[in-house]
């Protein structure tokens, strides 16, 4: 029986590896996920085989728990809108961290963490798992805009963090030394078990404090990092439980999650160190708003239509988050068709972080039927703007905001590579107002009345009107 379980765990691990391999390419990614899920099924089935109990109550508890958790997970996963994906992932990561922390806690409670290996790995599991749990919940709240939105800072934050961390270390040492530390300093009521509870609370607090100062724009990276943490905690608990399924799968996730985090942060142009240790120094933009009215070139759909029809030959469309909000992908496709039937060249410039999750725009546009070949990456589209007659920016701001290149002002998007739409002959924004985007940084392009046309309207309606105007012009 033991042998069969071990082999099953090994098969599961192999399926995880194969699954992750396939996740590297869009064509095979979905099957990769299915394969990994299948591996998980095998691991769970094998676990049921080794359970050595006849008590129906135990089976009921386990079955009930799995059913309850599974249903809640499935329903939330099914219901969440596409734009809510990142926070959903954060939530699922959080519950995983919580699970593993509780498992480690019960090991201590049952007195199973006897050897120094088990004890230290167990402590590590509790700390990392709790940080991951609390951090993920904060990340979720930020993205869902329930609480902690923006960058929450308070005085002496770093000092407080350091103190709590010190406390965590001392409590761990006390548990490890079986309470000897507390006795030595004369607080004998701090038994190992009580230390553990305090440790759990302190780790949770640490997780909260770690994430609250970080701005929402960096959340995907933070979630990825916490994901790697949870993997690591799972690996540590593999040491405690001498369970190779946990060990291998946890290590894989911990290591691949670390690399993924680095890749994401470099794609977003935000060094990891800066994200973690600084938070974002109080998002400027929104507050700075000088109330002075600045002039913009406010146009109608007809103006846009006749410009496109008569003066533009090469047109680049840049979609952003607003496209997703307005669900305007089909009208966008129609505008493309209309322009192309007039003999214009139409391309799409896709910024890697446009929207609210990586690949957001690709997903929407391919859904609407725009061919892959027309979707250009940041590097591929930027050289094209020089010869472009009109850039139509639909519901985007941050990804085309030249303020990112302004080296004097330190804004949340500083240093992020942007789509250099200002090199084109004309820039046309379709958005509802002058309000900035996710990062809250005002866009100087809005006020370039020579180059820019602002069409203030909902993305869907605006695109439809422009399409009509092109047809009638």
């Amino acid at each position, binding site marked *: 029986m033991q042998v069969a379980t071990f082999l099953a765990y090994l098969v599961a691990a192999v399926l995880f590896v194969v699954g992750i391999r396939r996740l590297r390419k869009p064509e095979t990614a979905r099957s990769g996920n299915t394969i990994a899920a299948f591996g998980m099924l095998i691991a769970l089935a094998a676990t049921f085989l080794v359970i050595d109990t006849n008590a129906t109550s135990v089976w009921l508890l386990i079955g009930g728990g799995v059913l309850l958790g*599974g249903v809640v*997970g499935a329903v939330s996963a099914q219901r969440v809108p596409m734009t809510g994906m990142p926070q959903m992932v954060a939530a699922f990561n959080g519950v995983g961290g919580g699970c593993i922390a509780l498992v480690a806690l019960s090991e201590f409670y*049952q007195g199973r963490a006897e050897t120094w290996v088990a004890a230290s790995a167990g402590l590590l599991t509790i700390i990392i798992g709790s940080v991951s749990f609390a951090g993920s919940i904060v990340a979720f709240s930020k993205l869902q805009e329930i609480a902690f939105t923006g960058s929450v800072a308070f005085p002496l934050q770093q000092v407080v963090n350091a103190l709590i961390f010190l406390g965590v270390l001392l409590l761990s040492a006390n548990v490890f030394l079986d309470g000897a530390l507390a006795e030595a300093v004369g607080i004998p009521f701090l038994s190992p078990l009580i230390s553990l509870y305090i440790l759990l609370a302190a780790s949770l607090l640490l997780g909260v404090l770690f994430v609250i100062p970080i701005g929402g724009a960096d959340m995907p990276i933070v979630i990825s990092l916490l994901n790697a943490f949870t*993997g690591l905690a799972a690996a540590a608990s593999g040491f405690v439980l001498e369970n190779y399924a946990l060990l291998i799968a946890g290590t894989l*996730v911990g290591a691949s999650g670390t690399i993924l985090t680095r890749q994401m942060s470099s794609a977003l142009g935000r060094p990891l160190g800066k994200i973690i240790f600084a938070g974002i120094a109080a998002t400027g933009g929104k507050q700075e708003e000088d109330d002075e009215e600045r002039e913009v070139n406010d146009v109608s759909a007809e103006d846009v239509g006749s410009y496109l029809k008569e003066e533009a030959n090469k047109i680049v469309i840049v979609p952003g988050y607003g496209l997703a909000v307005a669900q305007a992908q089909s009208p966008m496709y129609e505008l493309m068709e209309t322009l192309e039937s007039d003999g214009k060249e139409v391309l799409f410039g896709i910024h890697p972080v446009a929207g609210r999750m990586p690949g957001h725009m690709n997903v929407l546009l391919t859904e609407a039927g725009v061919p892959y070949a027309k979707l250009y990456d940041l590097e591929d589209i930027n050289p094209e703007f020089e010869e472009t007659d009109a850039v139509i920016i639909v519901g985007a701001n941050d990804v085309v905001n030249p303020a990112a290149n302004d080296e004097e002002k330190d804004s949340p998007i500083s240093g992020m590579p942007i789509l250099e739409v200002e090199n084109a002959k004309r820039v046309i924004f379709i958005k509802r107002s002058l309000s900035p985007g996710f990062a809250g940084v005002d866009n100087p392009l809005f006020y370039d009345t020579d180059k820019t046309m602002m069409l203030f309207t909902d993305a869907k309606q605006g695109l439809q009107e422009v399409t009509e105007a092109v047809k009638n012009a």
Partner: protein
Amino acid sequence: MQELLVQLAVFIIAAFLGFELISRVPNMLHTPLMSATNAIHGIVLVGAIIVVATANDAFTIAVGFIAVVLGAMNVVGGFWVTNRMLGMFRPPKTRVKKRKG
């Protein structure tokens, strides 16, 4: 001791494997990849099940039960949501290279 050493060996090789596995993933797959690996660490559910199965006291049973619920959410929700995300990446009909010339 031997057991621990071997575990260490497994840990190290698996860590290298994990590092190697994620080399240059395209940007648009970052979120699904994060989500799928997130589901994979839901393997902690195995640990939670073992806790409940071997528990002798009410406290452990309660803690274990909560852990099972959380773990199951992680696993099922994780794979489910990843599948939904990836469903959005319809296979391109003609994957011509972007540049024309």
